[in-house]
């Protein structure tokens, strides 16, 4: 029982984790991309469609990442080179993504999906309890953890990370030092798109291997909230993602055990209510948020030549 719960928590947390860590990099560079939901749903539909047509889950994942990046490139072009309003453009990306995914996905509604296989590590996977929980997951779960580790290392231990944070904290100084603010930001936005696409692929190829319209159901927005929750620190994203993963699977397990007194809609609304609660708790603590918030978050930069 406990093992089953833990397994579902991991699968529920993984898309949140991946999308949030991507958005964290974007925000660390000083850009607020509210289009995570749109990029994620595009990743989900493109991943499903390509995997369905080619029979290859790997190709599906690659295509989903590409779709997320294409969407983010559109966003990056508008907010970085045309200096469009970041909030509005992010919203536009979400609206467009939901619309486009509905159009593409119409042919795939009710089509049986393809689940990317779980890895089997001889020896380790056979250990009772620990094996199934930690060593029988699919590759994307591990990739998610690897991403967090890589982002944490890069941000705080490498020159690249220093430049990225400099651009996000003070774009004028970074520009004066000779760094191309727009280039750094564009690359960060592309990374965020790739992560959102991957998170989407996980939704449609592993979490629930099928295409359902609007299947991301606000997870992109929850990922955005997770970045605030983590106060822009990658390792805290893991904690947040697992917390939210746990809240969102509560629903399934409560229904399975016939806790009939609680309306299912209340349980379904828990992740959203939890998001609000967590945001309130975090943002009420000004010291915590101000220390790590990228100072130039959401501010446009036009290089003077």
């Amino acid at each position: 029982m406990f093992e089953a719960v833990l397994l579902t928590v991991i699968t529920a947390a993984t898309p949140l984790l991946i999308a949030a860590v991507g958005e964290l990099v974007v925000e660390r560079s000083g850009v607020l991309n509210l289009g995570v939901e749109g990029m994620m749903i595009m990743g989900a539909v493109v991943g499903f469609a390509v995997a369905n047509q080619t029979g290859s889950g790997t190709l599906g994942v690659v295509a989903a990442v590409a779709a997320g990046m294409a969407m983010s490139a559109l966003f990056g072009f508008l907010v970085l080179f045309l200096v469009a309003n970041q909030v509005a453009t992010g919203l536009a990306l979400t609206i467009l993504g939901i619309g486009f995914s509905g159009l593409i996905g119409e042919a795939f509604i009710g089509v049986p999906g393809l689940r990317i296989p779980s890895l089997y590590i001889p020896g380790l996977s056979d250990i009772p309890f620990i094996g199934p929980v930690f060593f029988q997951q699919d590759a994307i779960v591990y990739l998610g953890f690897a991403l967090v580790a890589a982002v944490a290392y890069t941000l705080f231990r490498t020159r690249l990370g220093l430049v990225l944070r400099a651009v996000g904290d003070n774009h004028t100084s970074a520009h004066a030092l000779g760094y191309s603010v727009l280039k750094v930001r564009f690359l960060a936005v592309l990374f965020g798109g790739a992560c959102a696409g991957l998170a989407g692929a996980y939704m449609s190829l592993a979490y629930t291997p099928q295409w359902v319209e609007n299947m991301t159901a606000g997870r992109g927005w929850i990922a955005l909230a997770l970045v605030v929750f983590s106060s822009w620190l990658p390792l805290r994203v893991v904690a947040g993602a697992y917390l939210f993963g746990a809240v969102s699977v509560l629903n399934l397990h409560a229904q399975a055990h016939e806790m009939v007194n609680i309306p299912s809609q209340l349980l379904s609304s828990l992740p959203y209510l939890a998001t609000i609660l967590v945001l309130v708790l975090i943002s009420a603590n000004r010291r915590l948020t101000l220390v790590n918030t990228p100072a130039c978050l959401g501010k446009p930069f036009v290089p003077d030549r």
Partner: protein
Amino acid sequence: MRLELVKRKERSKTMALLSPVIAIGLTALAAAIIFAVSGHNPLVGLYKFFVEPLTQQWSLQATIAKATPLVLIGCGLAVCYLSNNWNIGAEGQFVVGALFGSALPVLFPEFESGATLPLMLIFGAVGGALWALIPAVLKNWFNTNEILTSLMLVYVASLILDYLVRGPWRDPDGYNFPESRLFSDAAIVPNVFGGTMSLSTPITIVIALILAVVLAKTLKGFEIRVMGESPRAGSFAGFSAKRLTLFAFALAGGLAGLAGTMEVSGGLNQLLPTISPGYGFTAIIVAFLGRLNPIGIIIAGFVLALSYIGGEAVQSAMGVSNKIASVIQGLLLFFVLACDTLILYRIRFVSHHAPAGEASHV
């Protein structure tokens, strides 16, 4: 050769008017490409989508009916966005407004009088405003990001609606279908102009016109614009950002709630698990396409409503999925935002060989 943005000395008034027009043109072009890619004649597609609905009376009426909630919600959102309050949860405020408005005809079906409908409309506006005040209060008290909270409340609102129509508010004689009882005649927004138009439409236009005057001619309008463009300057003038946040959210929520009530008591005449085809989100596009100006929003609301009707038209006539409507809506917002760059910037072509950059430093 490459493109470079050059800041204009002041906002271009011409471009402020032209940018939505250019954006609509580019959207039509993109729509033509989508039609062509999906194997249809792009010109026929464009005609069916954008023009034909305007040539028939029934489709024109349907377009106006769809435009009404979009305009009403869009007007409230414009006040929010002008004052730098990012309310993106109008969809939830629409739903909660509809629930408050419907409480009367659902719980007290025998209460039929001349006061029924006015009370419902007031309840609807109050309900929407209360729902919208949640993110506003959280923003003011806890510094919580209103974008995320207002959006999260959309999901919560739809789940409450779902719970009510499947549970306590389900029609007792409805064979267990997830729907409320039908509203009595006293609880239905009447039609006017010989039955061709719901009373909601003139109400909406009057509200939009009042708001246009308030924004352009009154101190409150000035406050809204100053606090959006320069909160620091506004605070020196004695304007309170927190009070304005409450005002903007309550107004936007109230209008969305009113729209929600008029939608259920004019079109559907009962509550269903889904009562909106995404009006609250489409209204965001309406607000931007309409230049955050109520008069512009009336026109923009009509354009966006056309996309719903056009989507149905191409689906029935050409077999294109009506999902194309939401793609076109999304593209339209993208193009509006891109074209808005032209209001503040000129685009200059710079050749790589000529050192054009140096001249500007002199």
